[in-house]
């Protein structure tokens, strides 16, 4: 189970005055079980890119292989692809529509054509997975708090049992508590072996959780490496309007001030250890 993206290009509204080259020769390989952070500025093409992975956007040129099969091949089952590659959009709580939370989570599996029992089982499992209290299951989704709504929406995609879960800015507009809740859900999910792609513009959020960072700028995949290696380019990241975590800057400043600290530290824990070592 892997996704191979081979030189895809995407051009918006080709042939009109609004034409825009949104993706330029993007290539990468995503392996099973990876936890990837996709980072880029607004308009860098990251949202456009992830919509290619489940076939909602069709690349103007290039190929995408899922499990070794070309998804643009004639007769390829797009509906099945969409259930294997679950995509949670930004502000997913805006897409809730059913009268109860439980029914809303059942929507995905129902579209997969599963039996009622199977649907309910999956809804139950995925609501458990996102840690929503059972007493809410038969309430209206519109009565929940922001963080809870978002977890319900994520459960709605998880209920389809995707092999890859893509989340577009899952913490946008949430308070710190809601954000922590989402990240603890993601950490739990990771243990189940699912591949996760997390889209964000906040390095701080991503740095502490993911094993690999992809940086997009102006439609180009600029860096694709481990967080440590990506943050070594903190000067270049600043030029494209992104920043490394604050810890990286502190460590670099300390180093410049003559302290022999590890500048590759990206989490507060690592930084603390490194500073304590030299004291």
């Amino acid at each position: 189970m892997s996704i191979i993206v081979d030189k895809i290009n995407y051009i918006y509204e080709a042939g009109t005055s609004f034409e825009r080259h949104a993706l330029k020769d993007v290539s990468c390989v995503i392996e099973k079980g990876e936890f990837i952070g996709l980072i880029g500025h607004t308009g860098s093409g990251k949202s456009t890119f992830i919509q290619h992975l489940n076939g909602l956007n069709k690349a103007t040129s290039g190929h995408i292989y899922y499990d070794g099969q070309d998804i643009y091949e004639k007769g390829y089952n797009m509906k099945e692809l969409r259930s294997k590659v679950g995509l949670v959009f930004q502000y997913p709580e805006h897409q809730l529509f059913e009268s109860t939370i439980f029914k809303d989570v059942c929507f995905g599996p129902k579209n997969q054509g599963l039996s009622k029992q199977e649907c309910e089982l999956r809804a139950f499992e995925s609501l458990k997975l996102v840690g929503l209290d059972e007493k809410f299951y038969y309430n209206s989704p519109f009565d929940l708090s922001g963080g809870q709504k978002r977890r319900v929406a994520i459960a709605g995609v998880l209920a389809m049992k995707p092999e890859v879960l893509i989340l577009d800015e899952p913490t946008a507009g949430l308070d710190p508590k809601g954000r922590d809740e989402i990240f603890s859900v993601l950490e739990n999910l990771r243990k189940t072996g699912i591949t996760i792609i997390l889209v964000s513009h906040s390095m701080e959020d991503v740095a502490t959780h993911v094993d690999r960072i992809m940086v997009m700028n102006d439609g180009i995949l600029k860096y694709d490496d481990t967080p440590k290696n990506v943050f070594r380019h903190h000067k270049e990241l600043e030029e494209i309007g992104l920043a490394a975590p604050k810890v990286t800057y502190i460590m670099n400043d300390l180093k410049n001030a003559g302290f022999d600290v590890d500048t590759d530290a990206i989490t507060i824990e690592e930084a603390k250890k490194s500073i304590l070592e030299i004291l």
Partner: protein
Amino acid sequence: MIRDITIGQYYQTNSVIHSLDPRVKLMGTLIFIISLFLGMNILVYIVATLALAGLIIASKVPFKFIVRGLKAILILILISAAFNLFLTPGTVIFKVWKITITDRGLKTAIFMVIRLVYLIMGSSLMTLTTTPNNLTDGLEKGLSFLKYIKVPVHEIAMMMSIALRFIPILIDETDKIMRAQQARGADFETGNFIKRAKAMVPILVPLFISAFRRADDLAMAMEARCYHGSNGRTKMKPLKYSKKDYLAYLILILYLGICISLNIIF
């Protein structure tokens, strides 16, 4: 996908017609429509045709944009032509089984088609050369005399401009919701009518909720800026008549005069 729909059909270019005051264009459209319905005089229609052709050329809008509006009412035109053609009494000129065509029926049918076609072309020309915002401004100012009989002209105009302003936003929102539901395996394209209508529920419910939320936010933002309706409100770009607008009014009066006198004399 859904983003391809264009609503509000303003055609951007630089022409005399585009630069006219929207009130002149509204009045012009009204006068043009009146002239079409004055009577069934062939001379009036020749004048109207010449006037319309002149305006279209002056507006620099491609002809295909002007006739595009006709597609929508093609069926209406055909039905009204058929009714007039077959159901008007008069001298029979053609008869098969129970279907009869009379000379008067033929004449009214032809004039009816011309009237409807010109009506659509004339009003299309106005919407193609006036931005929606300008149009509402023109309506507000042009109808401001109705304020004296307690018609809330400003409020109606404000509602119109807000509605127009939100169309592209809601189209964008619909697109997003559709994609999100498709990501959950929703299918909008296959199935019979009932199945497809049911498939719209997951789009419509979130769309309505978001529309209400946006309306709430907008109302709050307007209140926060002390919006309180039309009293004492000034405009950033107030409408002002220029020389060419007065000239246009003069031409309009002349046109109406010619049409009326042609009707009386012939």
